[in-house]
């Protein structure tokens, strides 16, 4: 027979049950201070008061199932009592009066159960479960069709290490049309929607018209990336006429041709986006004025690290506590930050030399001449060169904001600083 007596606490021991909202994320429970963050209302609360930390730790012990009893004496510890009240005000904690004869309530606090967790498969020796149905993870492809370009942009070989961009190779190389078709064909059973076509100067790709014909055969959202210095109206119109997207890169110093004239041609095409690369505030101001003169223009602004503008980054890019908490961060986003890199996950890049990368700052994970995209997705899941790089390294792993922060980006790699923030500066 079911025995429920043991679920009822002995009379008079506890005055309150205390628990945390199931929407609350608790950071750094094992260290000397903790951060409680409500993932629904965005309220947060930090404490280093040891008795309170002990209470939160007890709540998380499996045998307490999210709730602990507080004795009447808790009210005598004024600091602890005030801390508890503060938690309640922020809808982070909940205090319940113990009712005599009633059993202890339970609260199912957040524990991530990721069914296809590669780390867990590896630890349990079930590596044969990693590779099942993994093509669905591939969502984006960047195909560099050539390295040819007649321009000499000063930061040419830096841009693409930071953001989607063209780059000029030391030698002239191009990807054969056959290989491009192989890639498009193999991606058809993945979740890929976007395909970025980049160069070099893609207008110098000798089989560009044949490649455009392939865009009619394989249905994806194609984005053709063109540096404004290489802009050619006739080819642009051909690309646009096939309902493809165009992304016009504008980096500084500007090219001889007027950026305004390019903007005039592209205006009204809602599949066109300007991608501005800026290194200084002056450049930012220039871009701001420019876009104001073209109402309706679609654009993105990307900061570029040039080796000397760290102050610009510190002032405008580095995150503060307020920046991190400015938008409410959902529990899923926090779980996501613990398990994968949302900047990289799902994206593969094929270079003109046929090498395949999960990120252009990482080593190659395959060669499209002999490896399929499926092989490369598997290789990346196992080797983790980029897709699952999270903030589990120093100094982030000592910070309460570790998984509230966005995933590590290319900027951290290029700048050579692993935390682009002022939180623990």
């Amino acid at each position, binding site marked *: 027979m079911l025995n429920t007596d043991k679920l009822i606490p002995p009379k008079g021991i506890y005055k309150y049950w205390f628990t945390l909202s199931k929407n609350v994320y608790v950071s750094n429970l094992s260290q000397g201070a903790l951060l409680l963050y409500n993932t629904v209302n965005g309220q947060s609360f930090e404490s280093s008061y040891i008795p309170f930390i002990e209470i939160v730790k007890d709540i998380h012990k499996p045998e307490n199932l999210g709730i602990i009893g507080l004795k009447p004496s808790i009210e005598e510890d004024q600091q602890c009592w005030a801390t508890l009240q503060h938690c309640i005000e922020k809808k982070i904690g909940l205090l319940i009066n113990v009712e005599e004869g009633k059993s202890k309530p339970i609260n199912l606090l957040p524990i991530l*159960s*990721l069914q296809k967790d590669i780390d867990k498969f590896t630890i349990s020796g079930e590596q044969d479960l*990693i590779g*099942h149905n993994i093509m669905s993870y591939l969502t984006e492809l960047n195909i560099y069709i050539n390295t040819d370009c007649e321009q000499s942009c000063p930061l040419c070989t830096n841009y693409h290490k930071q953001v989607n961009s063209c780059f000029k190779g030391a030698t002239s190389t191009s990807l054969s049309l056959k290989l491009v078709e192989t890639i498009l064909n193999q991606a058809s*059973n993945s979740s890929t929607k976007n395909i970025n076509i980049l160069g070099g100067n893609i207008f110098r790709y000798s089989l560009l018209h044949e490649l455009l014909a392939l865009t009619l055969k394989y249905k994806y959202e194609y984005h053709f990336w063109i540096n404004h210095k290489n802009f050619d109206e006739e080819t642009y119109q051909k690309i646009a006429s096939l309902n493809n997207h165009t992304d016009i890169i504008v980096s500084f110093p500007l090219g001889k041709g007027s950026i305004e004239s390019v903007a005039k041609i592209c205006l009204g095409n809602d599949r066109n986006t300007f991608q501005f690369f800026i290194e200084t505030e002056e450049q930012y101001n220039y871009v701001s004025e420019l876009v104001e003169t073209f109402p309706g223009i679609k654009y993105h602004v990307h900061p570029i690290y040039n080796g000397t503008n760290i102050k610009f980054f510190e002032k405008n890019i580095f995150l503060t506590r307020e920046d991190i908490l400015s938008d409410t961060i959902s529990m899923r986003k926090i779980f996501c930050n613990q*398990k994968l890199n949302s900047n990289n996950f799902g994206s593969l890049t094929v270079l003109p030399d046929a090498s395949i990368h999960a990120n252009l700052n990482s080593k190659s994970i395959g060669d499209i001449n002999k490896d399929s995209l*499926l092989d490369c997705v598997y290789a990346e899941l196992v080797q983790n060169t980029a897709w699952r790089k999270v903030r589990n390294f120093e100094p982030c792993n000592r910070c309460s904001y570790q998984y509230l922060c966005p995933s590590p980006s290319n900027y951290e790699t290029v700048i050579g600083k692993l935390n682009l923030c002022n939180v623990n500066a």
Partner: protein
Amino acid sequence: MKKIREYIMGTDVQMFLANTPQLTFETTDACNLNCFYCGYGTLYNEYNDRTCNYLSPETAINFLNYIANLWQTNANRSTHSNIAISFYGGEPLMNFSFIEEVVTFIKRELSGKHREFTFNITTNAVLLDRYMDFMVENEFRILISLDGNKHNNSYRVDHAGKESYERVAKNINLLRNKYPDYFEKHVNFNSVLHNRNSIPVLHDYFKQSFGKYPSIGELNDTNIRQDMKEVFTKTYRNPTESLMQSENYSEIELDMFLKSPTYGSVAQFLINNSEFKYDNYNELLYGKPSIDNKTPTGTCFPFGRKVFITANGKLLPCERIGHQHMLGQITKDSVDIDFEAIAKRYNQYYAKLEKQCKGCFNKYGCTQCLFYLEDIEKDVCKCKGFMNQKTFEDYRNTQLHFLARNPEAYSKIMNDVKYR
């Protein structure tokens, strides 16, 4: 004519087949036992439905080659992944030459980059002494059907009515003594619960005899012959009630973990309903799919979890589904699967049940297979898994009550349980 929503398409069905994690061969429908409660025995309408068919290795190899060809196409989305080859019956060891030939073929021709293989068998162990060396050599995972001690097992008799216990126990001990490490790692047990055993008795017997705990199944309660309903009721035992009759039910639950009906039920509840459970990285990154995109009922996609190949070459989505629901036919030189027709058939079933599913309070955690619904082929079909608010609350409270009794179960399930 009203257009039916396309929940799945033919290309999806082909993809499910290309990536299926399990192929189960009914090597024969013949059996050297004549268990009283067998799904093909006197209790059920399908009594005497079996005609001693033996699946030919040529037929199986033809199908294996067909699947292997799919692995070379874009329908394949998996690599380096395991595919379980399972041998089922009847009594599969009655067609041992089939097993030997198929295993040899797979190891020689198919093992490689796209798939690794493991071999499973479900057996009554009557012939285990003859073939155990082969199974050990090929690292079979063996699931032995045994209902407990001599009395508990007494419904498992041969065609002359002689009890099988002595022979089976002797064979199990032979395997255990000859290959102790293998026995420890690769041998498990499966018991049917009825009025001659109970969960506490099964727990004690297997723990003491083999240091293991069995998986426990109930008697099949569908398709019972009208004149046998009283006998069935007398024989049937409910697993949870059987467990709760013991004074030591908590200890049994902890020992048996997911094999205990209560622990297993709460694990299923949490995995299906917890907002903190995600299937894969895409769900973490983009969010869980909307309930509007979920196909009605808890039915597996066709071939999504396994393919069952009957002794006469019929393809079914599972061994627990009636043969009238076949999805294809194979012979030694043909494979007949119409992916579009299968998708259309499933879409018709889904459409029939969609309205009920939308109103069901267990729609997120449904495990109801539509092939278990007796009226599934009729115009109107009532889902027996449907839960209104009250039934769902009762179900939920039962699970939460278990967690209150076993608080550590929550973190253990969330951290350790993988639902396949």
